[in-house]
């Protein structure tokens, strides 16, 4: 037969149903052993929940600094990846245009972005040789997409003079005047 003392663990865990909890509370008044166990358990809980525990085991200030520093690096790394992705978009676009042999005249109605800095970026990518660089209007100001038009046929050795000014000689003002106009 189960004695009242056997309910000690369930009582301490708060798992004893109300009917049995009342009976066990009455039992505590007469059982010194269970009473001592309950008192000691409450004492241990108070110790472990006291503010002294937090004081004893506080993390070093350097830890927080380390976490912040690592997180900052992680964000910067994400930024580099974003730029890398943008560069990949440029190169893939250039490759696609070169392979398909599209000419600039076929896409002259495409909206052109009103930005100048991508030109510098694209020049760096393609070294400015025999290319016309057109930034494409894109919704995100942080993302630059440019289309590169080779000025020679895919299989040819002969330079096609699509524009009197070669990409090498472009400056931003010329770019703006000629590509936004009807010269292409």
């Amino acid at each position, binding site marked *: 037969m189960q004695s009242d003392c056997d309910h000690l663990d369930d009582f301490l*865990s708060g798992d004893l149903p109300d009917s049995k909890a009342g009976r066990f509370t009455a039992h505590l008044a007469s059982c010194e052993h269970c009473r001592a166990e309950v008192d000691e358990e409450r004492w241990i809980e108070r*110790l472990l929940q006291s503010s002294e525990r937090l004081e*004893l*085991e506080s993390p070093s200030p350097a*830890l927080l600094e380390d*976490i912040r520093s690592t997180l900052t690096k*992680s964000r910067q790394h994400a930024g580099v990846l974003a730029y890398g992705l943008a560069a990949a978009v440029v190169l893939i676009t250039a490759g696609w245009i070169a392979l398909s042999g599209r000419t600039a005249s076929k896409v002259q109605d495409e909206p052109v972005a009103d930005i100048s800095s991508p030109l510098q970026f694209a020049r760096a990518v393609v070294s400015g040789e025999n290319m016309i660089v057109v930034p494409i209007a894109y919704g995100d100001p942080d993302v630059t997409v440019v289309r590169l038009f080779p000025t020679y046929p895919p299989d040819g050795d002969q330079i096609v003079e699509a524009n009197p000014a070669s990409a090498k000689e472009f400056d931003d003002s010329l770019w703006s005047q000629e590509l936004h106009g009807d010269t292409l």
Partner: protein
Amino acid sequence: LPEPRQCARIEPTVTQPPFDALEAHVGMVYRYAMRLAGRADLAEDVTQETLLRAWRRRHNLREPAVARVWLLRIATNVWNDFLRQKKFQPKPLVSEVECHGRADIERTEDQEQVALALAAMDELPPRQRQVLYLATCEELSIAEVAEVLGINVPAVKSSLSLARREMRQRLQDLYNEVCGRAVREAGSKED
């Protein structure tokens, strides 16, 4: 007004915690990591990895109210990964400074008792130690403890009962000493 749960579902980005919100839990994660690792240097590694992993996965946290349980769960996973990958040297035989904070300052009597209770807890088997810490120190419900540790509720209850019994046994002498002194002091005041 919609319930907070509905808000979270409609616009999860609103409820994503900024890093400052996670930062507020560094101490809690570190103390739990101390129970897992038993060493300050490892606990710092676990804390750092936990916070960074939490930051990367912050989109998964739809309700900031459960951030504590979510972080403790991540810390448990981080520690399990550490164990699997053996990312640390075995515990040195000569004990190093176990924690920061007040280690180099003379402890008060209360702090000494707390330190002894923590030491007794750290001697428990890992599962009992984790369950006891989460249920008693972090005051999580049995269901939350089960979620943090990825085990079922009966397993939590069983480990918790064993851990409590073991703690009472280990700390009995200290309790009798403290309790007896308190009784004697109360008696002398009455006289």
